[in-house]
């Protein structure tokens, strides 16, 4: 098996780590495709700890936001042009997305999610391990509050999504969420 290449060839790994840990969080997804070691580093709990140790960790707020009516309007617009009577724009389902606000540097970013974020999704954060949970229920077509549900775990580090398994009896709209370490 070939030797692992250095994080930054020409520098010892501890020095390289001190450099990489200073890169702001919003650039981390772009570091994953560099090579195996960078991909694994950015998602590692030790990396998160190192950033906290050298005081470069950032305070992030995750929001589920309903996007403005642009997407809904264009759908309604097409329908009007075709001459059909259609549902009024405000009955078109809104589109939700996850936004991240960095308190540390005041930057905003919108996260692309693997599937549409369902209606009334909630974010909850687990501090240990740096994970954000996004849970929501997806309505079936034509009804509000239908039976489907979707849950994901977003690993904040590196922006990796994982599907969370939620048993049927726990399906439903999450109206609020809170986490605490007991």
């Amino acid at each position, binding site marked *: 098996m070939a030797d692992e290449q250095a994080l930054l060839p020409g520098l010892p790994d501890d*020095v390289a780590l001190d*450099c990489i*840990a*200073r890169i702001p969080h919003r650039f981390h997804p772009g570091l994953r*495709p560099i090579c195996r070691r960078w991909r694994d580093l950015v998602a590692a709990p030790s990396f998160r700890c190192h950033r906290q140790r050298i005081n470069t960790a950032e305070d992030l707020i995750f929001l589920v936001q309903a996007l403005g009516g642009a997407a809904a309007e264009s759908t309604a617009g097409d329908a009007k042009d075709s001459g059909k009577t259609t549902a009024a724009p405000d009955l078109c389902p809104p589109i939700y997305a996850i936004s991240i606000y960095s308190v540390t540097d005041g930057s905003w970013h919108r*996260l*692309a999610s693997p599937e549409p974020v369902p209606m009334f999704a909630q974010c909850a954060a687990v501090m240990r391990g740096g994970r954000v949970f996004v849970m929501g229920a997806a309505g079936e077509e034509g009804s509000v509050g239908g039976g489907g549900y979707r849950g994901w775990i977003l690993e904040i580090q590196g922006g990796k*999504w994982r599907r969370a398994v939620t048993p049927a009896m726990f399906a439903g709209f999450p109206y609020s969420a809170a986490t605490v370490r007991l």
Partner: protein
Amino acid sequence: MAAVTETESVDKKIRMMNSSSEEVAVENPPAINHMPEDDSASAAIPAGNSLSDQVMAAAISETGETGEGEKKNLRLMSSDGKEVVVEAAVAMKSQLIRQMIEADCAGESDVINIPNVTAAVLSLIFRYCEKHLGDGDGDKAIANDLKSFDEDFISVDLDTLYDLLMGSNYLDVKGLLDLACQKVADLIKGKSPDEIRRIFNIEKDFSPEEEEEVNKENKWAFE
């Protein structure tokens, strides 16, 4: 004579030092000016540099050189066999050298070996140290001037940046190490993976499946 000011003339300055034993850093830093010539007026020593002042005062009173406020110089042997002469107060911004002095590892005429750093890089590092001797004075004008100096100082080619990283890491000059690490981070952020690999000479080692997966994973929807 000021400390080394141009990296291009470093070699020239070093040759000069070898032949005539001139000092590298001569400008009186505030710490030395305030230092009393007898060792009883220690209350006059400014708080920010008190430890190094005390060490300096002790060193001078021990050797009996109190007459003309002569600055104590240190002689260092670089990894490439050149002797670098530097004012002790400047050199002691390096925690490694400071500890060696405090532990009395170098007497009056001993030469300190620095086996990991070349003379050129040593001179660069001490240029930073000399500029930052008054760190913590709290004067805003000085702080802005230092920030501008730092930005210019660290705008070097990647090889020199790596040398500064390794040198400041070995000599334990925290301010310079932080500055250099931040510069590397600034060079990486915002660039595409291809660019980063090219600049830093990193080999892409994904299998085709791994590459497909890492590209499929989430990116930001907008930057």
